[in-house]
């Protein structure tokens, strides 16, 4: 059996995400033909009309739900993979920043989408998350009222979340993908420009006085197409296996109960890809002096997200080398992964003394990682200069 050269999942997460994104778009279109964005009718439109009455409605809904789970899984693999190989450093910072914008857009689309079926989990997740905005200093209460459109999550909130989910976010994501994959620059790189030598040549060659000898062009087809295509077909086999035989991975039992605004479930949690953030918020269960625990939790969430966004600035080692060639960064990376996985698992477990203390440990580690990275990476760059 011949071994494929460079057949690495990390090279193809992007392509697979594009394919999955198209599947989500198509399944979303079919769902939106039958979904009713009204607080009283939404639950029935999903669980009766789409799941039981519409031909293959159950298939479109399962593709859409399982698709979002797999999309976030690939997104995290992609993000952590790029972090591992230092693909946020000089020359690649724009990909990192556009990727982080995509990450935030995906979080919004994932959150708004989960609210739409108006099950118990959908309603209370929306209630809790929108309430968080109240803690923004200054205009917090006004912002909450503006986002919800009402004093609590209601039909008005559902309608605007629906608009965000099917119009605003898909458009933003498509635009950002075009930026992130350099598609907006592809046109320029295939035309000769900048002294008629093209953008794909090196700086020295571009500004040299001599004509450049054209290199033997590599065929686009087969090199850039077949291997990603193979990765996509393998992924789609796994994806449809989960859609048909393991769809419980994407559905929570409590969301099969219609939303009841006067009955809060004993254990609320969001979809798995937000669990680490929820746990981060819950982790600081005591006050430190004058500062309330809930504020520290929110601050830690901001620190981690902003820290991830500003990785190009925080990592002071200028060399773009993989983590296994940087012992300190390797330890840092695995501490990050283990903290994220740990917090995700803890987020779903019911609160107990043990989970609170373990959660506090992982949350502190996660927050501290972004404060120590500048010093850690500085120590490295001196050693490797």
């Amino acid at each position, binding site marked *: 059996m*011949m071994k*494929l*050269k*460079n*057949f*690495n*999942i*990390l090279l193809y997460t992007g392509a697979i995400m594009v394919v999955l994104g198209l599947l989500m778009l198509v399944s979303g279109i079919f769902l939106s033909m039958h979904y009713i964005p009204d607080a009283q009718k939404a639950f029935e439109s999903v669980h009766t009309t789409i799941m039981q009455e519409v031909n293959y409605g*159950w*298939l479109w809904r399962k593709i859409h739900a399982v698709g979002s789970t797999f999309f976030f*899984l690939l997104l995290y*693999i992609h993000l952590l*993979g790029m972090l591992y190989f230092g693909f946020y450093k000089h020359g690649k910072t724009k990909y990192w920043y556009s990727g982080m914008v995509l990450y935030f857009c995906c979080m919004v689309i994932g959150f708004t989408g989960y609210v739409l079926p108006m099950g118990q989990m959908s309603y209370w997740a929306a209630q809790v998350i929108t309430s968080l905005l109240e803690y923004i200093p200054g205009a917090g209460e006004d912002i909450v009222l503006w986002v919800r459109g009402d004093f609590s999550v209601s039909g008005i909130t559902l309608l605007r979340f629906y608009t965000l989910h099917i119009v605003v976010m898909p458009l933003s994501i498509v635009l950002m993908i075009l930026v992130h994959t350099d598609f907006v620059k592809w046109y320029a790189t295939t035309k000769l420009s900048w002294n008629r030598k093209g953008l794909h040549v090196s700086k020295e060659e571009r500004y040299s006085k001599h004509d450049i000898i054209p290199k033997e062009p590599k065929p686009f087809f*087969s090199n850039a197409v*077949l*291997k990603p*295509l*193979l990765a996509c*077909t*393998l992924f*789609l*086999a796994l994806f*449809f*296996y989960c*859609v*048909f*035989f393991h769809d419980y*991975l994407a559905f929570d*039992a*409590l969301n*099969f*109960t219609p939303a009841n605004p006067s009955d809060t479930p004993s*254990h609320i949690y969001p979809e*798995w890809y937000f*669990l680490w953030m929820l746990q981060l918020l819950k982790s600081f269960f005591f006050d430190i002096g004058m500062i309330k625990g809930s504020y520290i939790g929110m601050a830690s969430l901001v620190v981690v997200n902003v820290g991830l966004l500003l990785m190009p600035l925080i990592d002071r080692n200028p060399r773009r080398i*993989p983590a*296994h060639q940087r012992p300190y960064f390797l330890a840092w990376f695995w501490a990050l*992964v283990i903290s994220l*996985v740990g917090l*995700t*698992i803890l987020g*779903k*477990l*019911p609160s107990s003394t043990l989970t609170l203390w373990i959660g506090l440990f992982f949350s502190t580690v996660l927050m501290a990682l972004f404060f120590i990275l500048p010093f850690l990476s500085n120590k490295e760059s001196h050693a490797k200069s």
Partner: protein
Amino acid sequence: MPNLKIFAAIVMCVFVLVIGLEWLPKQYTSQSSAVVMEQTLHVSTNEEKVIYEKEMSRRDVIGYSIVGYFLLLSVLLYIKIALQRFTCKD
């Protein structure tokens, strides 16, 4: 870090996540929910059960066909890539 090591690390993390998010919560809470109670209140007739079983097996067949289709496509693509490399080397 060779490709297989990266793949193994990712699979390991996903496995830990699946165990932690599916199996572990079940050890803490008993899965008695209102949904289960609702289902036992309505007793389905034999006819309904037969129709349900037929529909489930139909869905299973569709599932196996689609998964099989993508696996076959993967095998064919693999052969195409291997042949291309083989002919290029000549």
